[in-house]
């Protein structure tokens, strides 16, 4: 058992689908693990899906110590719920009757908010208690679902607190209080410098601050080009480029570059927190190289954002 003050803190990466939450979560996990901090990355993707999206293959061969300190887990709410049933019901006969009944199985799938509250509860506990394997984590990183589902997940705790009674309302209240504690629940939205993603990020910042009373730490702009921050005028750039065919290719580069810059400025004006850029590696062969590259770019980030 850990002392009450020793709870691990949590970094939550959220944002629109496709902005790179999973890669950045794993990269931060890598950064911590390389500094010998036991770290767990919690993903909302089922593991086969995650494994298909980005892989840590090669880590053990190249950085055995980091591999020892890095854990990636998928919290399956069904499993959390069946463990609760097992703990609550004393008779093994009854447990079996409940868990194998089609009523229980379909109820778990359809009861609104049930899986989400089970997930949040498990996440909360991960920051406080040693895991089943007896490992105490220093750092917990949550690779959160895309914006809509992420906000709905957090709102479940508030809805349970407000509308329900008994143990579920209490659970809702506990989780609501945990997620509003900015010292332990660091929310970092991620965006790309694209119109839809930037708009969604500005809106997300507003919604977090509203009903949920959560103030994000910073916004990460992911997958930027090398010149997102450049002040060199676009027209000056044009004179330095030449195309083999027509100039459409040059125009494409300049247009995209101009979009990036203007969205970066827009974001800076709309969001009161810090903004940081993570440049897209142009190409990579092993996923691990991409993750190490991102981890390196996060090295100088203030600890308070990434706990």
């Amino acid at each position, binding site marked *: 058992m850990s002392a009450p003050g020793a709870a691990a803190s949590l970094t939550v990466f959220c944002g629109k689908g*496709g902005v790179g939450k999973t890669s950045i979560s794993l990269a931060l996990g890598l950064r911590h693990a390389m500094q010998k901090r036991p770290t767990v990355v919690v993903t909302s993707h089922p593991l086969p899906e995650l494994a298909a999206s980005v892989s840590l293959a090669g880590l053990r061969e190249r950085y055995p110590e980091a591999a020892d300190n890095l854990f990636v887990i998928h919290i399956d709410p069904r499993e959390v719920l069946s463990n609760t049933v097992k703990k609550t019901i004393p008779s093994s006969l009854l447990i079996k009757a409940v868990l194998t009944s089609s009523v229980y199985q379909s109820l778990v799938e*359809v009861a609104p908010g049930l899986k989400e509250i089970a997930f949040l509860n498990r996440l909360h506990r991960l920051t406080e208690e040693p895991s089943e394997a007896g490992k105490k984590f220093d750092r917990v990183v949550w690779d959160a679902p895309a914006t809509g589902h992420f906000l709905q997940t957090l709102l479940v705790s508030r809805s349970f607190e407000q509308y329900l009674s008994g143990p579920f309302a209490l659970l809702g209240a506990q989780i609501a209080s945990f997620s509003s504690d900015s010292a332990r629940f660091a929310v970092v939205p991620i965006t790309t410098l694209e119109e839809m993603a930037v708009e969604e990020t500005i809106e997300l910042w507003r919604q977090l601050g509203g009903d949920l009373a959560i103030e994000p730490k910073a916004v990460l702009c992911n997958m930027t080009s*090398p010149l997102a921050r450049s002040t060199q005028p676009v027209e000056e750039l044009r004179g330095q480029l030449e195309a083999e065919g027509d100039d459409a290719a040059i125009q494409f580069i300049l247009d995209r570059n101009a979009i990036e810059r203007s969205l970066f400025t827009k974001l800076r004006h709309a969001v009161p927190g810090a903004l940081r850029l993570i440049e897209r590696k142009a190409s990579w062969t092993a996923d691990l190289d991409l993750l190490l590259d991102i981890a390196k770019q996060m090295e100088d980030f203030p600890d308070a954002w990434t706990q």
Partner: protein
Amino acid sequence: MKIRIFVGTGGVGKTSVAAASGLKSAIEGSRCLVLTIDPATRLKTALGMGTAGDRQKVPIEAFSAKGELWAAQLDVKERLDHLVRRHAPADKLPIILQHPIYQAIGTLVGMQELMAIERIGEALGEGYDEVIVDTAPARHALEFLDKPEYFTQLVGSPLVRLVGRTYKWWQKSSLARLGRIGVELYGQIENLVGANLLRDVLEFFSAFQGVAEGYAKESAETLERIHDSRTTSFTIITSPFKASRDAGYFWEELRKREFFVEGLVVNRVWPELAVSARPGATSEAEALVTWYRNVSAAHRQAWERVAAEYSPKIPRLLALRELATDIDGLPALHQMAQAMGQG
């Protein structure tokens, strides 16, 4: 009457591709509805429309369209009320609408997937030639198809039907009628969820059961039409760097459920950029050019790989080019719709 369902992970431009497909069909003469079940999406912004109302007609006269384009976005609370009013007996209606459990489920995550199929079902009766569904990137992308089946299973189970029908009666008489195991189990569940909440849920369900059964029946009919490959096809939308894994994942999941996968669209593929820095250019310009060339080459490689792998499996494969400007408004969608025609 055709149903086309667009699936994909977040951020690949599903909504834009769905809207552009709808526009293309409408120009060619269909009466077409684009229905998005993603609460986060900005379909109406993309189509240059206001936010009011359940469905709206999109003004597409400028493209000399022969048909009509309609757009709708799923409103969970509104659909739920609609469902209740359709199926609840008159005496149960006020009980349901004012019940705290009803207030709670209207706000909770998970209802979106259940209501999506209800909305699709309604769209099937609204006289369109084509209904295009833009799905939400859920935890499991096909949850909006799986969840109604679980619900139907739950509502149809003998125990739930018994409890729903007789709850009022055994609440008044005696729990003993449930038998010894039943009483013990009820006690344990009471411990688990709390006595008040359990009573609320059961009381609510006994009023709601008719609605639940009505929903189950309708959604089973809609799902049957979605399973019919003569009526319904699926299109997987992805982006270059996600193409290989998205295609693999959705192809497997859809095939497992025996759905017809008609198309694979790799969206936002960068054009070939044969650009270099002039002699004497700044190192900034040098870095920029190299970066763009590398990214665009990687895009095209990703497309070629996925096209080679899936052309024997999926009838329509299409790469859509990244537009220099962001997709916003009808003119950009029209540009995309035209690109689809050439594909």
